[in-house]
């Protein structure tokens, strides 16, 4: 099934997930959605659940406000008429901050470390506990 990239806008990407790659696009769907048969879920990495829970937390804090103030102050209003950089990748990375960072890093550890099952999960839980203080 071929779905080519369409549209000429550089801001728009449309495709089906590529076989053998594109895991990051479907990761949340295959871990968090789909039919679940409670009695037979047998994933040995406990830490996955923490990603889906922690990622729902949005922290509004003084740090966030200062960051917005900085972003507004750095704006070059005169340049807003021209072409704009593709911020999608950078934007997505910067979104994983504060409380969510530990969870995202933990899953990356977990899914790329083929042997590190429970050790990885324990370490990530510890990171989350530490960042709670």
């Amino acid at each position, binding site marked *: 099934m071929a779905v080519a990239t369409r549209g000429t806008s550089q801001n728009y990407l*449309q495709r089906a997930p590529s076989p053998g790659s594109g895991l990051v696009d479907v990761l949340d769907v295959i871990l968090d959605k789909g039919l679940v*048969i409670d009695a037979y879920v047998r994933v040995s990495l406990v830490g996955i659940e923490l990603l889906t829970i922690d990622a729902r937390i949005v922290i509004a804090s003084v740090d966030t406000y200062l960051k917005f103030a900085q972003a507004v102050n750095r704006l070059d209003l005169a340049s807003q008429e021209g072409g704009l950089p593709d911020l999608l990748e950078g934007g997505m990375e910067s979104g994983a901050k504060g409380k969510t960072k530990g969870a995202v890093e933990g899953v990356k550890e977990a899914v790329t470390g083929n042997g590190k099952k429970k050790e990885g999960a324990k370490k990530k839980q510890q990171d989350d506990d530490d960042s709670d203080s």
Partner: protein
Amino acid sequence: MSTYLYGIVRDARTEPPHLPAVGDAEGEIRLIGSGACVAVASDVPGAFVDATAADLQRHSDILQELLSRASALVPLRFGTVYPDDAAVRRDLLEGRRGELEALLDSVENRVEARLKAFYVEEAVLAEIVRDEPQIAELRRRTQSLPPDATYYDRIRLGELVASALAARQRRDAGELLARLAPIAVDYVVEDEPHEWSVVTASFLLDQSALEDFHSAVSTIAEAEDRRLQLRCLAPLPPYSFVSVSLEPMEAEAAWVS
């Protein structure tokens, strides 16, 4: 050896994909059952699967391939392992036949499209400064004085920007959904903690409406090019529309430990 499940289809004549299987690259992907609901499965060693990148990718790839081979596909979340095929037949295909048939009906000839929309940070901030005099004024003041003198002003500025951003996000998300929802059978919106997110949503589409959906998203993307970035992943197996959790039945109690 245990039985790992990928999804449920209607047709026992569906050709299983020849792709690497979860837990065993050389494992054969096969069908279980011959009645109204058929499970797509492979053997895995042991009773658990690790959530490795490779296995997650295989689960996704197999379901993606099945989407093009089956008119109705109920994808399972990663990690469903039954003790053996007999348990699959008894507890799932026969034991939950009614639920499975209802799910299959609901996704017959349908696919999922997953949309993520983000702001172009500088464009939306510029809009906010232009549209909100209070913000423009605080910006002027905090730019012209040394940082030490403007700590509380900067917090106030950031708070106003955050609030304006949230209002814009609600409005823009609403407009996107108003444009796209009519093309879909159903849709779900998700919380997206990313601060520049406009909306993250999954749409259930009739296969025949997929082109129209792509066109609509493409049109919006071109029109909003300066201020929005859209990413549309489609067609997908309808993960978001079969996200039911089937509670353990009595017969499964022995396996739950």
